[in-house]
């Protein structure tokens, strides 16, 4: 009996020491000058972090995630885990609805002036009144095609249903992206919740099935570079890299419209270092810094002052920097609620 007692006390005291350790750690973190950043993997030029630390004396605790959903689970479990995060549009909407974000005091982020007003306008689609979001990157979804294999000029989603490209088409293997293509071709909203419209889209996608060589996500890029297919549905952010590897590749946003996505920085509702978080936002919106990040990530930056410093070759490429007309024909994904997500998913299963 005594032995057992000893073991238990030993275990308890051990865990208490560790608990003590971690307590002092977190206290230190609160008192110290830090900002806890949660970003996509490989989504910033590392020099930028070092420069921010040097300039402000704030320690950056930097962490990365790979999907919006993974990030959401962490923040929902404890909103004070991180101070600033970088979700995508629909996820920002969901987080606002669930009170996980805190309003930005714009007086502390004067560099917001550098951000394209057109973009701020689009941000208000999911962040009404522009209270929470500093846009970081954006892009469209479109068709990447190999000009050595496609003779005509592509302007419409119709080409993805063209028999001449049988077994030469790569579709996005994600529910919302695939349905967006079909819904837009039919002239509907890509946030449609109308069952009849979705049914039509499903039939259309099913009709396309025999023409498709592969459904893919990440591999679209490599397959197109290798010339394994003539047409592929892809995010514009990948285009710059693809065209550098294979100059025959061109990108177009079909005239029926497409999806516009925006990743933006927001502050969590549980942030304990809000002022530092705002300094981080302001720092990233600086023209030189935004330029540096653009050169690293190669996704379009909404920072107008940074755009002025970018090579004209890129600026004039509508695939990298879509003009107002293209942006206006694109729609941002909205979070449609669990029930609709399930319906989309059910229909997607019937397609394949």
């Amino acid at each position, binding site marked *: 009996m005594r032995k057992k007692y000893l073991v238990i006390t030993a275990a308890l005291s051990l865990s208490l020491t*560790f608990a003590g350790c*971690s307590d002092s*750690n977190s206290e230190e973190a609160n008192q110290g000058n830090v900002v806890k950043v949660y970003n996509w993997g490989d989504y910033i030029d590392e020099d930028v972090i070092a420069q921010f630390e040097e300039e402000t004396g704030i320690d950056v605790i930097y*962490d990365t995630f*790979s*999907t919006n959903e993974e990030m959401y689970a962490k923040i929902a479990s404890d909103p004070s885990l991180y101070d600033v995060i970088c979700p995508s549009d629909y996820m920002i909407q969901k987080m606002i609805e669930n009170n996980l974000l805190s309003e930005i005091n714009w007086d502390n982020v004067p560099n917001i002036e550098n951000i394209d007003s057109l973009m701020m306008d689009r941000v208000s689609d999911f962040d009404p009144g522009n209270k929470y979001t500093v846009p970081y990157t954006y892009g469209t979804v479109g068709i990447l095609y190999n000009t050595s294999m496609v003779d005509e000029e592509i302007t419409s989603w119709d080409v993805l249903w063209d028999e001449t490209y049988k077994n030469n088409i790569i579709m996005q293997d994600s529910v919302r992206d695939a349905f967006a293509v079909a819904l837009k071709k039919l002239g509907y909203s890509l946030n449609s919740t109308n069952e009849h419209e979705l049914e039509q889209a499903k039939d259309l996608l099913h009709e396309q099935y025999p023409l498709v060589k592969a459904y893919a996500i990440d591999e679209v890029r490599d397959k197109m*570079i290798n010339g394994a297919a003539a047409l592929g549905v892809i995010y514009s952010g990948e285009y710059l890299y693809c065209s550098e590897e294979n100059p025959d590749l061109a990108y177009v946003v079909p005239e029926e419209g497409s999806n516009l996505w925006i990743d933006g920085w927001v502050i969590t509702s549980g942030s304990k270092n809000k002022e530092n978080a705002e300094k981080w936002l302001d720092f990233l919106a600086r023209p030189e810094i935004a330029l540096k990040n653009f050169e690293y990530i190669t996704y379009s930056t909404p920072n107008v002052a940074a755009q002025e410093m970018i090579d004209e070759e890129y600026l004039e490429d509508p695939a990298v920097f879509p003009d107002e007309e293209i942006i206006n024909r694109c729609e941002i994904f909205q979070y449609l609620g669990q029930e609709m997500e399930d319906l989309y998913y059910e229909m997607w299963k019937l397609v394949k």
Partner: protein
Amino acid sequence: MKFKRFFSQIYLTLIFIFLYAPIAVLIVFSFNSGKGSRFDGFSLRWYEELFQSEMILDALWNTLFIAVTSALIATIIGLISCIGISALKGKPKAVYMALNNIPMLNSELVTGLSLMLVFAAFGLTAGYPTILIAHITFNIPYVILSIMPRLRQTNKSTYEAAIDLGASPTYAFYKVVLPELMPGIFSGFLLAFTMSLDDFIITYFTRGAGINTLSTLIYSEVRKGIKPTINALSTIMFVSVLLLLFFINRPKKATNEIL
């Protein structure tokens, strides 16, 4: 007969190609001057970038530190447990060995999740200590499993003889038992080290803000495509392990020859 040998040769070759071709591809692509899945020419670009990326080096340091520390602590705890278990007999011994095996067969998901819950219940904030405790926890059974057979082989009489000749129990342990157990302890340590090095699931559940190990860092880069810097890092790790293996196996051969 010749026919049969020919086929067994081919079979063996195929198996080794199957095992090593992916690694060979990875090594070749770590020297690629381009980014894609096409070889554009030889360059050390990714090795240069690797050593300039603080994020990767930080993760590497975390991984190695956690692997060495957790393996070391697990080896010590495991060794003590082994001596304790070996002193038992019959049913209790079998029960303890079975209890030791369960965590190894158990899904890592369950281990990771339950550890996370325990840490939360004790109010431990996820961070360095939690990863370390978690790694020590799942390493201990492997250490016990590799020391136990050694301990069974040792001759109890040598220990008793040492005591008879006037050694104190501790002295006899260090001078007689420990040296005999050394190979088992060493292989237990190595096993624990590699288990910790590779672990993703448990680390994922128990890590805190800002602490990445290599596996969690690589995982988070999936969205933008994994960069060849990771190939470069993997190559370095593979070569290091290979060298380590040569190093370990060489002296053994020498002693065998003497015997």
